[in-house]
């Protein structure tokens, strides 16, 4: 079965795969995670607000993002971001947004909807009395949220947030549809150039598996540690 297998093509392309491809994948993952958690937490706070002007738009945004395929969202933003950018700075035509920033914006805004649902559950997992105690101490909304509720919510939801980030890491491979050189994109380019589809795609699968599996085990151990402390 592996008689015609060319391991050499993998070795030859390792620098390209990791220096260009994996760097892009990890940078995109890290930026989208940071942006997504920040924006997602804001969305969660808006959704839990009693003001309709805050909770209706947040709920609409989250539900909209969650009912559309990621591939379609990637296409949407790829074409929408240049127009929005041009509109914001008042240019006469759509501005040029590089593939990198286009995908950072896409993944941040898309994942924010998923992080928002996790953070909403996290905020709700904090006992109501904690908020009342904050109010009784004379803290305002932002102080109560920032110093009492959110730290506990983050802690409760840390394993789920990290699991979502592993999914985000895997999802970034979908930038392939924009012909971007992320890890999979790099593997696909070499696969097509050298006619070595089997080797490159199997290798990509192994790399993704090893990273995701290792991370998910770390999450599991973290979960156990947190569970004991509580």
């Amino acid at each position, binding site marked *: *079965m592996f008689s015609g297998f060319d391991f050499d093509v993998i070795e030859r392309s390792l620098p390209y795969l990791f220096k260009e491809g994996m760097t892009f994948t990890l940078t995109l993952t890290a930026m989208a995670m940071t942006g997504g958690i920040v924006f997602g937490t804001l969305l969660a706070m808006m959704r839990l607000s009693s003001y309709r002007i805050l909770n209706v738009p947040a709920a609409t945004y989250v539900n*909209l993002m969650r*009912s*559309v*395929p*990621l*591939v*379609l969202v990637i*296409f*949407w933003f790829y*074409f*929408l971001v240049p*127009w929005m950018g*041009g*509109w914001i700075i008042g*240019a*006469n*035509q*759509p501005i040029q947004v590089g593939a990198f920033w286009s995908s950072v914006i896409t993944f941040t805004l898309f994942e924010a909807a*998923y992080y928002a*649902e*996790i953070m909403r*559950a996290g905020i709700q997992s904090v006992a109501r009395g904690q908020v009342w105690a904050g109010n009784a101490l004379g803290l305002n909304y932002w102080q109560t949220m920032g110093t009492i509720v959110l730290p506990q919510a983050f802690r409760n*939801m840390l394993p*789920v*947030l990290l*699991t*979502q980030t*592993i*999914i985000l890491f*895997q*999802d970034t*491979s*979908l930038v*392939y*549809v924009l012909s971007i050189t992320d890890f*999979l994109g790099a593997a*696909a380019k070499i696969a097509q150039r050298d006619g070595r*589809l*089997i080797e490159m*795609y*199997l290798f*990509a*699968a192994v790399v*993704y*598996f090893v990273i*995701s*599996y290792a991370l*998910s085990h770390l999450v599991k151990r973290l979960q156990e540690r947190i569970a004991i402390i509580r």
Partner: protein
Amino acid sequence: MKYNWNWGIFWQPAPDGTGVYFWWLISGLGWTLATALLAWAIALACGSIVGTLRTTPVAWAVRLGNAYVEFFRNIPLLVQMFLWYFVLPELLPKALGDWMKQMVPPWASFWPAVLCLGFYTSARVAEQVRAGIQSLPRGQGMAGTALGLKLHQTYRYVLLPQAFRIILPPLTSEFMNIIKTSAVALTIGLVELTARARSMQEFTFQVFEAFTAATIIYILVTLVVVVGMRYVEKRVAVPGLISAGGAPMAGH
């Protein structure tokens, strides 16, 4: 800066002569639904079996089930799509591989897409089924044993009927996921809804109309599924058996 809106575009004939663009999108929806439904059948069948195996007292079955779930969960769907489409025909015996490669166009990407989505989702279903069974009080299984039921009877008459009722809401979202993630199949050439919207955009340059239409169709499908599943939940509900709200799961 002005974008030229043209909502009439949907009623203009498509270049391949099969009708107007509106029907183009609808035929894309047809492929999306066909892929999703067939894949869901695989996911539900395999997922239930694997998920159940992982709760049995048989050590090797648990390990096998865990390996299955880890395998499908830790490789990105797009990579799995490529494995099914490009790699599998090469690894199979030559006659079978050649037969797969020579399938007529829509089917050559349809079947790999169905299998890929089905097995990918089956790992997620297995995780839900396992969680559902393990959320039942341990006494349920013991009661089955005390009544003289064999292991498979305990599962068939005591554990699984309760577990499936509990996990109905997460299964609903898995079903909606499979409809959405079927869009990934456009990378191996399946002309489903997102692919149709994309090629409509390429032919007409009406980016936002095409994507808006696809988005609305996806939302409508989601709504239909939600309403349908709410009906199913009501139909199968057992009075007194309160389905617990599950913990939030990461996912799409």
